[in-house]
């Protein structure tokens, strides 16, 4: 078991993860045996985006909370603001677990959890909020939040919805440019500094430098045996969506310089709903598997090279418009091909399609994905789970299903 899995189980008993709780001295979190320094730093950024934000704000900066992946972080950085990706499951403390109960606004549980956190004042550490159109559940959340703000029932905050459309056509490309320019104008009002071309170019270069490092880490996962597990990868990817580019690059460089010991284990590729639940990945890896890749935007889908173009905005829009497809909002063929190729490139022995109860999209891919991967001798196991991760019993069943798919019922 790797250091991170130990850390993970230790985290459970360690007390509130309350990101909104300033009263806990940091020492309380330091009862654990020291894992690799980079792992400590990644975990900290992953667990405490509020602390990262506070530090940034103490230096006079402003923080933009980003809900979703389909928002050009590079543009936010170019405006001199720190974008921090918001993970609904991690915005609430252990004391108030996410129960996935009835949502009066009929939001999906992740969006409801986000709204609960916002309404409870747990997001005081962001200065502004941008919601990406990752899925129509985000659209609905935006619609609801817009109403609550108009009714004076949500804390006043600077809000922007970034509408990125996904059809691969010229009309969509043009529309995305219009909306992205408008987004830049909004950012300028938030920061006082427009993200103009030089700053954008620098930001794109920094983003690409980070992507290069993340690609090198992905190479470790491609190796046999894998040089990096799925839990560690989620932590590093999550940290890269939290920290400023310089700190991210330091972190990733340290991880590359001091990688964990290789992880033998049956190789699993995780497809389906975006999730950042370490317990989920931890349960799979704890059962002797190693997650060598995933097709969602808390993992491998979260980074891609931004083409460097005469007008940097063009390259930026293309990266998000035409970049790696997510389950929601993209086409069946495009998505199944992407997942199939990724899984094969990572040498997966089995693909696990994990769908949350509320997620309308990935399950439509199943027959196509199953048939494609069958042609390469790779079985696909599917599971539906409550958000954010499922109970220990269903996670144990999951591991059992993987083993059955690989070795047959008696394996």
């Amino acid at each position, binding site marked *: 078991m790797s250091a991170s899995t130990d850390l993970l189980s230790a985290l459970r008993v360690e007390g509130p993860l309350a990101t909104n709780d300033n009263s806990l001295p940091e020492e309380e979190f330091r009862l654990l045996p020291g894992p690799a320094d980079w792992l400590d730093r990644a975990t900290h950024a992953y667990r405490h985006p509020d602390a990262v934000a506070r530090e940034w704000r103490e230096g006079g900066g402003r923080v933009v909370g980003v809900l979703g992946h389909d928002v050009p972080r590079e543009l936010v950085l170019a405006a001199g603001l720190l974008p921090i990706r918001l993970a609904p499951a991690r915005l609430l403390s252990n004391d108030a677990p996410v129960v996935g109960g009835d949502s*009066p*606004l*009929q939001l999906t549980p992740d969006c409801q959890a986000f709204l609960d956190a916002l309404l409870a004042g747990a997001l005081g550490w962001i200065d502004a909020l941008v919601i990406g*159109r990752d*899925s*129509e*559940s985000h*659209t*609905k959340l*935006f*619609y*609801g939040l*817009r*109403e609550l*703000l*108009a009714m004076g029932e949500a804390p006043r905050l600077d*809000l*922007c*919805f*970034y*509408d990125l*459309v*996904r*059809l691969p*056509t*010229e*009309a*969509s490309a*043009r*529309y995305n440019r*219009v*909306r992205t320019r*408008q987004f830049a104008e909004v950012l300028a009002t938030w920061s006082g500094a427009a993200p103009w071309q030089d700053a954008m170019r620098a930001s794109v270069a920094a983003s690409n430098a980070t992507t290069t490092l993340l690609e090198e880490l992905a190479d470790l996962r491609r190796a046999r045996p894998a040089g990096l597990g799925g839990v560690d990868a989620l932590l590093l990817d999550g940290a890269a969506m939290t920290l400023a580019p310089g700190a991210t690059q330091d972190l990733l460089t340290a991880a590359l310089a001091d990688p964990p010991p290789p992880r033998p284990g049956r190789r699993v590729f995780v497809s389906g709903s975006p999730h950042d639940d370490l317990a989920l990945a931890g349960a799979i890896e704890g059962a002797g598997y190693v997650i060598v890749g995933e097709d969602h935007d808390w993992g491998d889908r979260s980074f891609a090279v931004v083409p460097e173009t005469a007008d940097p905005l063009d390259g930026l829009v293309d990266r998000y418009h035409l970049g790696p497809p997510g*389950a*929601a*909002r*993209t*086409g*069946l*063929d495009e*998505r199944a091909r992407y997942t199939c190729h990724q899984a094969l490139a990572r040498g997966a022995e089995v693909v696990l399609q994990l769908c949350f109860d509320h*997620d*309308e*999209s990935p*399950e*439509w*891919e*199943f*027959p*196509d994905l*199953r048939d494609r991967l069958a042609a390469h001798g790779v079985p696909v196991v599917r599971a539906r789970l409550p958000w954010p991760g499922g109970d220990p019993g269903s996670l144990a069943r999951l591991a059992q299903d993987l083993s059955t798919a690989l070795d047959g019922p008696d394996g």
Partner: protein
Amino acid sequence: MAEGSAFTRRSELAITGEIVAHQREWLAEVRDQVAGGEPFALLSADAPHEIYRAFDIPYVVVQWWSSVIAARQRAPQCLAALRAAGYPDDREQYSALGLGELLLDDPSGTPWGGLPVPTILSAPTTSDGIRKLFEAWSTHTGAAFYPIEHAVDPRLDLPRDWWERLPHHWDECLGPERLDLMADELRGLIGVLAATTGRSFSEARFAEVMALANEHAEWNRKTRDLIAATVPVPVSAAETMTAAMIPQWHRGSEWGRDTARRFYDEVAARRDASQSVCPSERVRLMWLGRALWSSLGFYRQFEEAHGAVFVWSMYLGVAADAYLRYPDGRDPLRTLAARFVPMGEEIRMPSWSAPWHLKEAQLHQVDGVVSFGEDDYFSTRLLEAAGIPVLSVRATNVDRRTWDEASLGALLVEFIEEQVRPRAERLRA
């Protein structure tokens, strides 16, 4: 659980029977044409039908076909067929039944003689599953799939009285970004349809289609206004659901326009003769949500015993308010874009749906609202703040695993007797 319905539907208007009969004949004709090699499109309800009408490409609306399947009590088998093929059976159900039926491959039980195999599929990208569902459909039929991009209005402050503004002032009301995108999409669609069918697009014919569609909507508006203002109500929502919905899928044709006019004439004649579907009307109800197609008779069981009659559904409401767009000298294609950019937002986006529901409830002198399977949080708040009680039910119309007539009926009776009637009596006293 019994899938059937304990209620037989009693027809209220002669026109409804004619509409259904026409639809059957029309579908049989389309089957012949398609057998003879003509193109045939399966379209989502919110796809730009007018383009297909202008090309004379026959089309069937996927959600209408789902309603036919559901009314024939055939939804469970179709959902099972989806599951057997590895697709989900509890997602996008209202759009997916037709694919289920195709996979079921059981012509003996198909309603209305069956649907021809499509050569074209099209839907806007308004939900997370729809694009994949249609792509799967295209794989199983060989039909070409044309997705239409759907953009979201990110403005923080929207005009709320869209039903007043959109008919003439659609460009100010919607803003240019999404109109540009949709107009581009429509131009692209026209190019692709011309190339793949070998037909030509006539601007003159298109302008005529647009004019007919507006006339059609004007008649619907008059019918809606007449029903709203007449107590006791001449015709129930159970009747207008069908009478408004099927002609809607012939929008832009003379038959569509003329049928909407005859629908109006018949309702007006009933009003003039003081004929009501529920002469002892004491309670006027609004049905918020998709219709219970497998159980249209259900709606009328409260009339005799409780004097409670459903006077409103979105089918006539949307037909009256959501389609009118006048070019007023502007580009007809952009005018059509203005019809489709906000399509569905009238009933799904709370900044628009909630004030509209309240406006319609007040216009129809409604005493209580039954909301079924809707995202109704903001509508409920607004309606209740205006003193109109709301019963909210979580279920899916075409999935009988989520509701049954007996319990739903009991729930409604309790709601009517305990919340709606006392209020109605107070107001009328």
